């Protein structure tokens, strides 16, 4: 069965991959986009898949936190689907970008050029939240697997799992809230909605539930509670659509039919009891929500003919959709097959495994609670509140750093703009602290090394983001040499003028650096000292001026060789001034210039 599904997934995946390859190669022109809406199918698919990714953590974390009993198999399946969906959701924004190689600039870190990402942008929040969410749901899933595999070490794991659940619970909702803000903070009339967080989360949970129910149908297994929740979800969404319609007058009929009307068949007992009909209802919900997302992203008349796919879109749009579907089916069932033992290992106890553990645990907790603890030493404080407190501290430091880094670059970061990145960092720090100790003791030595390796990898990633890509010198093109401004000046004044107009933007009027400009655009150039100039020699310096070097642009097309020679001589003459401080207002003036690529 799973093998068959894997092949079906592959059948979707292969054309999907071709479409992804084409889309990546051709850029945004390949899918149906509009000069006015600009966003296309990849963004809709991103929102759709990130919504599906909520199911897992919702089911296991929120239910665990709220003491709703859920059997291990459903929870594990849901968590696994979360991970797979997250991977898919992370690919789409990359496809969406026009210059994919620059994606690292979105990370809210200071980079080697002294540039900080614009923390006011919802995309930066997205990046943070999704990265943290992905990491932590992986951790949560691993904890769950270990908890099932090694019953002797359960105690520590189960305890931190519950604390983790309390941390993840708000994070899940936070992530999708932030995704909704991508839309809600804009001026697009169709995306006008301060209520979008609630709207998106309702949609995400609804589609996530449909996904889990569909997966459970495949397992030939059902959880009544989830079906009821799905039904309630459809009502909630209908109410939200109504409000959206009243506010803005746009309404997606096909989404309403597929995700609003058809689920009501679950009220009919015959439909509910039949596995095939049930899965068809789940599928129709997923379809409806997909159409709804497409409609939401591109609500122009020509695109919304079928709430999305019409003649304006191309095969690539279909291919991108197929890629998501195929990738999910293939990856999910591959992992499902691989992990079938831990997922199915307590078949007999299904339905009450967690409850047994939980009741034991809560009994011991109750005993603990009955005792008296002096302030700040209760288990709750030590286990959960202390890491959270530490996380808040780290997060505060980060926010202060962010705001102060942006202060000198004309960007006014207001307090509320850093709020969205605040919480993910708190959760990240808190859960790393929370899990570090128990996980360290649970793993054998080899796994510990793996863990250290992952840490090194992460540090390397941060380093790569910090260093950024190289900036290549602009390709030299043959252009005729242009005379500089004034012709009637003597050659020395002319050289000074060329230096001041062409070189001083980076090298400074006095041969020092114009630090502000350089930090913004390029890595700091070599300092021009007398010794260095002497060691390089006249000819090679002239060559550097004309042909360019590393980050210096070539000036051969704008300067004659004589000019370059005169410049080098001028450079020599100002180099010794290096140590003397001269008061010159020009050197400190920032000069915003468009960078010549």
């Amino acid at each position, binding site marked *: 069965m799973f093998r068959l599904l894997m092949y079906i997934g592959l059948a979707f995946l292969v054309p999907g991959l071709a479409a992804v390859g084409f889309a990546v190669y051709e850029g945004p022109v390949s899918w149906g986009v509009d000069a006015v809406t600009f966003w296309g199918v990849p963004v809709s698919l991103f929102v759709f898949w990130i919504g599906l990714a909520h199911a897992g953590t919702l089911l296991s974390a929120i239910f665990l936190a709220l003491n709703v009993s859920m059997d291990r198999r459903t929870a594990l399946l849901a968590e696994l689907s979360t991970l797979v969906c997250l991977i898919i959701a992370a690919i789409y924004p990359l496809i969406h970008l026009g210059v994919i190689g620059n994606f690292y600039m979105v990370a809210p870190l200071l980079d080697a050029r002294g540039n900080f990402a614009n923390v006011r942008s919802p995309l930066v929040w997205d990046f943070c939240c999704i990265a943290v969410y992905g990491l932590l749901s992986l951790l949560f899933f691993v904890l769950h697997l270990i908890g099932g595999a090694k019953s002797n070490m359960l105690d520590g794991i189960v305890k931190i799992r519950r604390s983790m659940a309390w941390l993840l619970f708000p994070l899940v909702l936070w992530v999708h809230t932030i995704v909704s803000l991508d839309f809600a903070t804009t*001026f697009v009339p169709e995306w006008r909605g301060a209520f979008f967080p609630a709207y998106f989360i309702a949609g995400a949970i609804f589609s996530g539930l449909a996904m889990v129910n569909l997966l459970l149908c495949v397992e030939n297994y059902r959880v009544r509670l989830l079906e009821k929740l799905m039904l309630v979800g459809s009502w909630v969404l209908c109410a939200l659509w109504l409000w959206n319609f009243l506010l803005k007058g746009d309404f997606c009929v096909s989404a309403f039919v597929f995700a609003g009307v058809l689920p009501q068949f679950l009220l009919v007992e015959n439909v509910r009891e039949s596995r095939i009909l049930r899965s068809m209802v789940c599928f129709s919900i997923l379809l409806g929500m997909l159409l709804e997302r497409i409609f939401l992203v591109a609500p122009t008349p020509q695109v919304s003919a079928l709430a999305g796919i019409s003649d304006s879109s191309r095969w690539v749009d279909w291919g991108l959709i197929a890629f998501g579907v195929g990738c999910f089916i293939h990856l999910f069932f591959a992992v499902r097959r691989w992990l079938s033992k831990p997922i199915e290992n307590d078949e007999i106890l299904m339905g009450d495994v967690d409850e047994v553990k939980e009741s034991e645990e809560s009994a011991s907790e109750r005993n603990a609670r009955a005792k008296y603890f002096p302030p700040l030493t209760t288990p709750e404080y030590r286990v959960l509140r202390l890491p959270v407190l530490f996380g808040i501290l780290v997060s505060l430091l980060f926010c202060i750093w962010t705001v102060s880094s942006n202060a000198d670059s004309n960007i006014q970061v207001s307090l509320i703009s850093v709020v969205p990145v605040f919480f993910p960092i708190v959760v990240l720090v808190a859960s790393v602290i929370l899990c570090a100790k128990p996980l360290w003791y649970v793993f054998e030595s080899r796994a510990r090394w793996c863990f250290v390796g992952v840490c090194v990898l992460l540090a390397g990633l941060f380093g790569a983001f910090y260093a950024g890509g190289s900036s290549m010198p602009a390709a030299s093109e043959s252009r005729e040499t242009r005379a500089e401004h004034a012709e009637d000046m003597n050659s020395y004044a002319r050289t000074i003028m060329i230096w001041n107009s062409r070189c001083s933007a980076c090298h400074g009027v006095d041969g020092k650096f114009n630090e502000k400009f350089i930090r913004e655009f390029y890595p700091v150039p070599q300092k021009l000292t007398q010794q260095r100039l002497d060691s390089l020699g006249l000819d090679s310096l002239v060559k550097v001026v004309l042909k360019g070097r590393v980050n210096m642009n070539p000036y051969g097309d704008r300067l004659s060789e004589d000019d370059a020679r005169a410049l080098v001589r001028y450079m020599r003459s100002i180099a010794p001034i290096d140590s003397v401080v001269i008061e010159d207002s020009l050197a400190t003036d920032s000069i915003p210039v468009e960078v010549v690529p």
Partner: protein
Amino acid sequence: MTPLIHALACLLVLGLASFLWRGKITLLKESLLILAFFLLSVLFTILAGDLRDPNMELYPFRMLALCLCFSATTLHSKRRRYLVLAQVFWLWVELFGSLALFYRGFDVPWLRLVAIGGIAFGSSFLSRINREMEFCLMVFWIAVWTFF
């Protein structure tokens, strides 16, 4: 929207809240009730407010959040947990609503956010919530709703 109608919304919500969590709590019944309340708040917003005002986009959701806060006091078990959750829901609606509105040129109501956040944080430390404490909380919420 005039202050009087704004206060009336609070009263309406207080009345509605008493219908929630009565008798045996079942998922379908309670969710239908909450949805009905939501639709009522939508109706109230349409009748009492100007839909072109972006502040109104949030209004039914704020009413619903307040309703959940009020109704959480009538719960029999796990009252503290759900009180905190309801208040966090309210905070969440207000915080992200005002964040979205901030990008469209509205001021952030910091006082309201801090007040709700403060009371939510504070009530997570309450060990026993008795009648008087409930009353205090409700008065505080009403004050936040009408004045901040």
